[in-house]
């Protein structure tokens, strides 16, 4: 899956988290596996 701008990706093995600040067609890998997309759960916005 291509990387998406502004999304966080997490390695389920070592816990590394990365943030994509420019999208591209590649897919991130860490610890020999694909990194999983981590969704922010937007607040009902208190600030």
């Amino acid at each position, binding site marked *: 899956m291509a990387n998406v701008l*502004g*999304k966080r990706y997490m390695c389920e093995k070592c816990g590394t988290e990365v*943030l994509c600040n420019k999208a591209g067609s590649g897919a991130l890998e860490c610890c020999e596996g694909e990194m999983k997309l981590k969704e922010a*759960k*937007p607040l*009902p916005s*208190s*600030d």
Partner: protein
Amino acid sequence: MNTVNFISIPGSIAPEQEIVVFGQNRLTYGELNDLVARLTGVFRQQGLKPRDVLAILDTNSHLYIASYYAAAKAGLTFLPLNYRAKDPELEYMINTANARLLLAGDRYLDLVKRIHPKLNGVKCMAVGEGDGALARLADLAAKADPDETETEIEEEDVSVLMYTSGTTSLPKGVMLSFHDFTAYVTANVEMADGTERGVFLVCAPFYHIAGTTAMMTNLWTGRKMIVMPQFEPANWLELVQREKVTHAFVVPTMMKQLLDHPAFASTDFSSLTNLAYGGAPMPVAVIRRAIEAFPKNVGFVNAYGQTETTSSLTVLGPDDHRIEGTPEQVELKLKRLNSIGKPLPDVEVRVRDEDGQFLAAGQVGEIIIRTPRIMKGYAGRKDDAALADGWRATGDLGWLDEEGYIFFAGRKDDMIIRGGENIAPAEIETVLMSHPAVEEAAVIGEPSVEWGQTIKAFVVLREGRKAGAKEIQEFCKTRLASFKRPENIEFIAELPKNALGKILRKELHARQKADA
């Protein structure tokens, strides 16, 4: 990560997007990043090194925001000072933090001159026009070359040192790390992507956690910030209409001032979708009035949190503020307007008793929480609230209902013990404020030889309404257990409060002692 990325990454994606508005100043991400780079240069020229402390004493402005991000970029610790603090409190904060540079707004120049002899060699600079004696930050920034070097910080380095309002004791310096803010912001809002994400009106002071996190979440997510120097109801209403504000945060006293303002009725609120409130308990009468008075497009959010936990822990969302449905649903919703809602996704909440046992629904105890964004600690003093397994005692009393809604029942320190019975003042205050003639009420314990403490209520009557102590005591009779009824009622013109509208109970205690 370094929090300067909250503006530099969105800035690389959407440099032309307008993001900060303060009076006549309208800055795009590109312009904000340029200003930050220049200020970073200024701070480094002043000899400030990573982990040095930069203090600021001023009302909100675009320069305040830029100073924070420049401090972050240079790896400094930012100390936003409460501009309502008294001289000895300011001396205490500046000296114990060991601040190296103090940025002072025009309104505070005389104050700074007055306390300067007592400060430990801090350099001063003017944020505004200045008085001719001090160097002006804006002049230095205009002359400085943009400094694009971002200091490599450690996640646990202190980004903001924030002294809490201290309603009960000397202010405590809460150390919030780069990690704490990054965890809060990235877990709760999406990063900017160049699309419109709305307009946020900020009126909470930046020295308060709600103001500080506002300048991070909104800039990270691409929501334009309209900055008010400080709250003023006519200006707030005018800005909502003119800038087509979508999001805002107010404290309860501000909400009431807005509702009471003559311009309220003629203000166009059609853009406003999200009006959050917090900072102090909201009287149910005020929020009910707000729900009635604002148009239906306005969704209300009640936020509960602490400085020590990097802002919000729980929220009561817009759906819970829509008072509709069957009579049973309406009754339940009205009851839940007293609630502080449910925990955010990265927060766990429990209620425990004195022995540390978790309590079942309906039982009042201390609220304890667990989240990855608990402060690093207090500056120069021990943190007594840290518990085993990452839990933290909030010092707040509360209870959960069957569905996990949390209800706030006052500060643990304010608990009244009458003849061995624990009584939370908030419970009595809620009853008193449901009396039609009562505007506000605060309850404290009065020393008593017979009972240890008895209950004293300070009551503010609504304008034009009358009620005697007897009548109010009768009213309490059918609504409170006998040991919870106020034995002594004193009518006063207004309750003493801090800047955020939190009741200053120590002043009520002092008043009571003076009368005794």
